[in-house]
């Protein structure tokens, strides 16, 4: 069905009781051209781009729970393209451009809101680093503005500018950054992919790979039976190591827990997305009024989808340092998601050494903003058997060849990225 002002009016006249399902909950067929493991944003976006851009419509998306029940529903909904290293800069801008046309492409309201992302700086050295990153962005045709103290004071007057240890000196602003409604992104891709014939199969956990005599992957074993596949793509960030292990692969990835927080709803306060540069704290305000914020990962391997107190304390300290008045706001909810922390902090989108098996992994804690771009380049890889030019550096073998993309310069210690 097509969503429009007319469909809304029609549904309103019947008391909103006659809406059709947004997407079709399919039962598995015997065989598909492409099977995508993982019904999160990335998997569904991949399926949609396969069907819409590359003409491959005999596609299934397998999800062990319900779609969007993993990290797609557990993030802080931030979108931005302010990366500094070759490989990342172009890819995230590709993704940002796809965000800007997503709602028209999908015929679905994903509440994409370009309300701006500002990274605050607190020292001369940090200003220089941000100036460099801003220049990198501008050279690549991405919007970036370096704001001085007066400009930040005008934009966000309520910050604690005179913090004795970490005075705010200015910020790097990307006006095209912002937020999107994370669940609607999942539903939008499911809706549009389903309309093009993609089968979305829930409660279908992959339990193994079917291989032929040469070792090529020719399908998957699932909790709902065997499903044949021309190609299999993995988009299961958080569980990549577990699924890859079924094909005998070990990955340069550790799974870590990242927590996020929502406060009670308050009146409009925070104009866009803000990050505190002296610690690790980022915050935006949802349309319902809650402050959505987070900070560092907990730092130890985990598959538990919940974190511990020290990081909660650290995140709240960051918030208090930046805007002490949020100490009066009560915390409403807190949760954890499982991050694919790669060894250089950047993603992997590549063929694997196993014929017929393709990998989309290692998103660390930045996967949400990448959703459309990741789907687009992964669909390209699956359809053409070669990397899209904007994802050509996200190779699996870069850890062996040394062509790392280490945005933070931390080395092979995943919990520091």
């Amino acid at each position, binding site marked *: 069905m097509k969503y429009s002002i007319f469909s809304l009016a029609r549904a309103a006249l019947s008391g909103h009781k006659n809406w059709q399902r947004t997407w079709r909950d399919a039962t598995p067929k015997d065989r598909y051209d492409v099977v995508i493991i993982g019904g999160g944003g990335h998997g569904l976006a991949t399926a949609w781009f396969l069907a819409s851009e590359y003409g491959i419509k005999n596609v299934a998306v397998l999800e062990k729970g319900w779609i969007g029940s993993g990290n797609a529903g557990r993030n802080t909904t931030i979108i931005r393209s302010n990366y500094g290293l070759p490989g990342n800069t172009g890819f995230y801008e590709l993704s940002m451009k796809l965000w800007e046309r997503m709602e028209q492409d999908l015929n679905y309201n994903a509440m994409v809101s370009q309300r701006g992302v500002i990274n605050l700086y607190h020292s001369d050295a940090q200003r220089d680093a941000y100036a460099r990153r801003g220049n990198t962005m501008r050279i690549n045709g991405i919007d970036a503005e370096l704001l001085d103290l007066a400009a930040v004071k005008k934009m966000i007057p309520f910050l604690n500018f005179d913090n004795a240890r970490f005075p705010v000196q200015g910020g790097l602003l990307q006006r095209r950054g912002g937020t999107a409604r994370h669940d609607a992104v999942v539903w939008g891709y499911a809706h549009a992919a389903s309309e093009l014939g993609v089968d979305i199969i829930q409660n279908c956990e992959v339990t193994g790979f079917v291989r032929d005599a040469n070792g090529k992957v020719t399908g998957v074993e699932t909790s709902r039976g065997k499903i044949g596949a021309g190609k299999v793509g993995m988009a299961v960030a958080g569980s990549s190591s*577990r699924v890859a292990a079924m094909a005998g692969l070990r990955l*340069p990835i550790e*799974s870590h827990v990242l927590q996020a927080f929502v406060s009670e709803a308050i009146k409009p306060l925070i104009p866009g997305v803000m990050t505190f540069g002296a610690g690790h704290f980022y915050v935006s305000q949802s349309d319902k009024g809650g402050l959505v914020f987070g900070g560092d990962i907990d*730092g*130890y*391997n985990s*598959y538990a989808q919940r974190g511990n107190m*020290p990081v909660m304390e650290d995140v709240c300290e960051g918030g208090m340092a930046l805007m002490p008045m949020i100490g009066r706001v009560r915390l409403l909810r807190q949760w954890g998601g499982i991050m694919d922390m790669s060894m250089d902090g950047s993603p992997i989108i590549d063929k694997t050494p196993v014929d017929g098996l393709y990998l989309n992994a290692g998103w660390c804690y930045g996967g949400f903003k990448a959703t459309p771009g990741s789907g687009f380049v992964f669909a390209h890889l699956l359809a053409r058997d070669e990397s899209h030019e904007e994802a050509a550096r996200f190779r699996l073998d870069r*850890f*062996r060849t040394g062509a790392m993309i280490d945005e933070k310069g931390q080395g092979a210690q995943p919990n520091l990225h």
Partner: protein
Amino acid sequence: MRIVCPFCGERELGEFTYLGDAKPMRPEAGASEDEVFDYVYLRDNAAGQTSEHWYHGGGCRAWLKVTRNTLTHEISAVEPAAGVGARQVAK
């Protein structure tokens, strides 16, 4: 999560720093490129029982070997990591 340090007793998590899986062992000096690559970059990333290194920086500053379940965060054993601490305990 609380860790019972063999030297200091039960302490809160904030006193400890995580290094990672205790299984990878540094290869010999003449090891092949494959062995070094495996040691530096590849991880089992197990879902379930793991053995891992933690540092008690907020206490005795000893390196510890902790057996922990990554699905539940349950800790079943804490011992001193191989080295001086382990020799002290063995006395």
